[in-house]
Each structure stands twice: as C-alpha cells, then as structure tokens.
C-alpha cells in the first residue's frame, strides 16, 4: 500500500489550525482531481472564510470570489469555458449565510458545476460567531447561552433545502470525522466531479468538518462533537441522485 500527497496540491504547509477538517477535504479534492486526470482543465473558486487562501494550496487555476458569490462566478466560468471542470469550495458562512441566494438560484438553474460545501457549524476565520448551521444549544461568541430556537431559530439544513429543487442532480452529506467517513466522502466528491464531466448537472457535497479552535475543545473532542452531535442534526446520506 502506498499513501502519498496528491500532485494537484502544492507541497506547502497549510495555515489551518491543528485538527481542522479543511486539510482533509482539500486532500480529497486533490486526490479526485489526480484520479480523474483533470488538473490541466480544472478551475476552482476560493471563498471568503478559512479557505480564503485556497489558491496557495491547489496546483490548478483558482479564482478568488467575493463573500458568498462563488456559485455566480463559477456559473460565468462554466458558461464561457464549458469544456473546463469548475468547482467551488465554500464554508458554511459563505454558502449558507451571505451566499444563500446564489446557492439556491445556481442549484435551481441546474448549472453544470460542482460545489464542495464545508460545514463546521461556526464562523471560523472571524472568531467563532454563530453561523446559520450552528446547532441548537451550541455556544458561540454571539450565542453565549447556546443557540436558542426562539431567538436565533433552528440550524439551516442546506441539503434538505436544495433537495426539493428540480435543477439539482446530486446532493450528498458526508463527514471527515473518521477514516470510514473520509473514504465515503472521497467517493461522494469523485461522483460530484464525474457528474460534471458527464454533463449531468448540478452537484453539491456537504462535508461535516471539525473546528476545534472556535468550538474551544481539543482535536479529539471536536471529532466526537461531529460524530455525536452534528450527525444527529445533519444526518449523513444521499439526498438526491438523478440518474
């Protein structure tokens, strides 16, 4: 058995905190780009958030987008260059808060792009404020008594929300909190990219990820939080898979 860093990622250390799931998700995307042999024709879009420096890590074209506008930019790229593989890499503050409109409309139009949505239930880069995906009762710097149902409302479930739209081809929620989940996540990411190559339409993979720094727990406790708390609120599985 051999295990090497994917060649689609540059050989540089990342700026992410210890135990952050972003590094795992980026490795999976890099491995999928390698396996499909599409590095030369892949264009990614970087979000605003912890993954803002994505262009420093990927050895393919990456365009930096305004906060939440990655799906709109990706739409433009894909329409002008339909032979390229276009993906967006977004966090929950980017995709599910300020970019909700772009996300819903790009899904409804059924644009032939791939979205990798990293859900860590908090605003990471800005210091741990409540995100739309923060789970009920979770303490953040802006919900110090825990997120309440009445004041802040329940968490936004993006896969469930988009599943009702006709334009969506593939929706799956995965996690990167155990090796088994990571291997499943890779299959989902690969399918999302393959769908685009086969011109099947819009694919989104939501990845439940750890943020030990802003959850203010250890790396291993963050893994337990994903496994025990987040998976209860955000059940894993395929939400839509149009053949």
């Amino acid at each position, binding site marked *: 058995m051999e295990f*090497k860093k994917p060649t689609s990622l540059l050989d540089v250390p990342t700026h992410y905190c*210890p135990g952050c799931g972003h590094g795992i998700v980026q490795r999976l995307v890099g491995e999928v780009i390698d396996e499909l042999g599409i590095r030369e024709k892949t264009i990614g879009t970087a979000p605003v958030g912890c993954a803002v420096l994505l262009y420093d890590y990927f050895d393919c074209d990456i365009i930096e987008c305004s906060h939440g506008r990655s799906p709109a930019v990706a739409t433009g790229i894909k329409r002008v260059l339909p032979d390229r593989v276009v993906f967006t890499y977004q966090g929950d503050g980017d995709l599910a808060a300020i970019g909700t409109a772009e996300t819903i409309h790009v899904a409804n139009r059924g644009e032939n792009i791939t979205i990798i949505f990293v859900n860590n239930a908090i605003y990471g880069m800005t210091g741990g404020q409540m995100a739309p995906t923060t789970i009920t009762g979770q303490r953040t710097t802006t919900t110090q008594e825990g997120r309440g149902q009445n004041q802040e409302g329940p968490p936004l479930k993006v896969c469930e929300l988009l599943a009702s739209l006709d334009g969506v081809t593939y929706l799956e929620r995965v996690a990167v909190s155990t090796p088994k989940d990571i291997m499943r996540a890779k299959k989902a990411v690969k399918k999302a990219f393959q769908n685009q190559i086969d011109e099947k339409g819009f694919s989104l993979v939501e990845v439940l990820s750890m943020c030990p720094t802003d959850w203010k727990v250890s790396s291993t406790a963050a893994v337990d939080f994903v496994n025990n708390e987040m998976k209860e609120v955000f059940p894993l599985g395929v939400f839509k898979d149009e053949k």
Partner: protein
Amino acid sequence: MANIKFDKERCKGCCLCVAECPRGNIRMSEILNKTGSIYAEVIDEGDCNGCALCCQMCPDMAIEIEEDEKQTCCEKGSEK
C-alpha cells in the same frame, strides 16, 4: 512492515493520528519542531502494518507510506 514516514515539520500536533492508530503505535514527541509544536512519531516502525488510517485522518498530510519494494515483488510473484 510498512515504510511509514512522518514529516515532523508539517505536523501541528493535533493528535488525531494517535487516537486513530489501531495498534497504538504513534506517540507525540516531547520536544518541539521548528514551528513550536509537538509532533507525531511512530513508536516501532516494524509494528506498523501500513493500514493508513493515520494518513487518512491527518489534516496536514504529514504522514506518507512508501511502497515496500520487497512486498511488491512478493505480491507480483503470487499473482503469477
């Protein structure tokens, strides 16, 4: 035996590999690397069977397993 390599300068000391190793064959160092972090290291290289669960879990791609040439020859031999 697997040819496992830990890149101590990439390691940020999150300990996820330590928790994941089914043989309990990974420990954290007592000294710091250049970035000021403790780092993961294999306790007994001979006891590693190369399952790669630590590699899967590592967020910093600090663990690699190189192909064992001897094992590859044996596998090729058995295929024939």
